[in-house]
């Protein structure tokens, strides 16, 4: 009895019941205010007499023991890490646990480090796209676009209107494909198996279209400085039309299937909450910021490419929990469908590539191309010295900043919620580790 009670944390409202239950046992119930008096009074000291690191959670139950080391479970470290270093995106989190509750967490990155930024110094500007695809391998178009924007700003290249619209079109298609690869597995993390397979259907449809236009399914190498390498094909237009006819109905079906499921709501609502202030302080961007109530989208507020000519809404939520992030992204997919429809309706005629020399030489200087990627603000900073290769290139990955928030969100949660909480930030370790 005593052991079971010590494993649980019960809200303050049932303090009295707990006090009755535990009157004769070796545990004592304290309120959050009592606990705030100090760690010394809470019986929470480590063997050397100092409070354990990272305890910020008020606990309602504490143990009384004659010998403090006898009944107190020791904190232990759990290495929630990669099973194998060569899996796709690997994160190692060292969790400090008390029973099943997380006391503190520390993320270790760098297992997927390939030296992309250093390699970029040895590549010509035309060759950089195939390298930067590998940074954020789920949304390659956006990294290529940020690189192209930076290079075009330095070299003062004027991009044809059709290329601008094609960039928007393929960017939005890639955004949908990227969102589906996140929403499905988040269902998987919280125990919903079927939705993953249903959402993979939609992702495959978009990937087929991307392959038809760009030539590959993930490593596109499509957006280049000066435009795009290939025009859209009639078959791609047909594929998009065919899929868009059923796309919104499928989103409604996903809503019914996953979002209205009570189990999923209980696993995600009120868990992994990022407050508005935290999101702003840690430099979060994209859907994390919007799900915490900040109305900010680069596509609308600082339009690049041709985004100023499209009509779409920026979807925000106030809760900041996992469910809010999921809803926010589902709504974003719906808005992406709107943009894709407008793209196909008004695609201007003309060239899709500016006239450029075979080997592009960029004048000395520095420039930064910023785009709104699926995960947030993605920037590529180029420092050029006048040669055909950049002197220094830097990628600003949005999820690296989200990773910093994870260390403040995880403490206080149960270990089972840590998986879905971590997954809800949509880390892409290709771009975090680079």
């Amino acid at each position, binding site marked *: 009895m005593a052991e079971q009670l010590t494993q649980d944390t019960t809200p303050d409202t049932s303090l009295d019941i707990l006090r009755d239950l535990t009157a004769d046992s070796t545990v004592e119930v304290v309120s959050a205010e009592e606990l705030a008096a100090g760690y010394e009074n809470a019986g929470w000291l480590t063997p050397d007499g100092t409070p354990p690191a990272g305890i910020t959670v008020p606990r309602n139950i504490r143990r009384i023991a004659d010998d403090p080391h006898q009944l107190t479970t020791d904190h232990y470290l759990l290495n929630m890490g990669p099973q194998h270093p060569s899996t796709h995106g690997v994160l190692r989190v060292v969790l400090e646990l008390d029973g099943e509750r997380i006391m503190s967490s520390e993320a270790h990155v760098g297992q997927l480090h390939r030296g992309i930024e250093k390699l970029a110094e040895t590549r010509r500007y035309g060759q950089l796209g195939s390298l930067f695809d590998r940074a954020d391998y789920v949304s390659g178009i956006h990294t290529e676009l940020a690189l192209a924007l930076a290079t075009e700003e330095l070299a003062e290249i004027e991009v044809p209107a059709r290329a601008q619209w094609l960039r928007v079109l393929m960017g939005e298609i890639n955004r949908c494909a990227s969102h589906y690869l996140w929403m499905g597995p988040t269902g998987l993390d919280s125990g919903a198996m079927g939705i993953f397979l249903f959402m993979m259907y939609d992702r495959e449809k978009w990937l087929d279209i991307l392959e*038809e236009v*760009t030539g590959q399914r993930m*490593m596109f190498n499509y957006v280049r400085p000066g435009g795009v390498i290939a025009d859209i094909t009639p078959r791609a237009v047909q594929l998009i039309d065919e899929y868009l006819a059923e796309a919104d109905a499928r989103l409604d079906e996903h809503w019914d299937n996953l979002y209205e499921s*009570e189990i999923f*709501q209980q696993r995600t609502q009120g868990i992994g909450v990022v407050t508005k202030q935290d999101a702003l302080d840690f430099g979060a961007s994209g859907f994390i910021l919007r799900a915490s109530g900040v109305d900010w989208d680069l596509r609308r507020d600082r339009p690049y490419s041709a985004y100023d000519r499209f009509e779409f809404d920026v979807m925000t939520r106030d809760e900041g929990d996992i469910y809010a992030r999921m809803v926010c992204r589902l709504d974003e997919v719906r808005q992406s469908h709107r943009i894709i429809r407008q793209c196909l309706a008004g695609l201007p005629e003309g060239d899709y590539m500016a006239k450029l020399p075979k080997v592009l030489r960029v004048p000395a200087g520095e420039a930064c191309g910023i785009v709104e990627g699926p995960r947030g603000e993605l920037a590529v900073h180029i420092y050029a010295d006048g040669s055909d290769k950049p002197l220094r290139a830097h990628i600003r990955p949005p999820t690296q900043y989200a990773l910093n928030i994870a260390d403040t969100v995880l403490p206080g949660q149960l270990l089972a919620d840590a998986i879905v909480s971590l997954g809800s930030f949509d880390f892409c370790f290709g771009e975090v580790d680079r």
Partner: protein
Amino acid sequence: MRGLPTGIFKSLRIAFKNLFRPNMVIQYPKQRAIIPERARWAVEIKPAQDGSHRCQACRICEGACPHHCIKLDITTAEDRSKHIDHWWFDRGSCMMCGLCVEACPFDAIRMGHDYELAHADPALLVLDLLPDTPAYVRPKPARPVDPNAGDTDA
């Protein structure tokens, strides 16, 4: 839990609906997916109309490749005609970016559609696409004979 758990019935309804939808999975070795025309897989030689190759041994593809997986061994004879000893292509380090095909001024190579590239032996990944071949020499256009050429002398 608030009220009746209606979500599970919605999920069941969708699962039931999916029973009657067509199959989306391709049974891979028996069925093949449609590969788009632009799909980029391993590099191969693009034959001309008569089946010959068009490589002029200019080595532009070698310089365009970011991973240095194309290597040409070329012998130049005394009359400056070129002979391709080997046209090495390392499938193992190729990332199918298509830059070599874009760079080729003679339209001699293309990105093939062969996607079954796994081999048990890594040595089999290095291919000689044009072994021991003379470089293609573009035929000079035949000069039209001027019918009045002989008349001026007379």
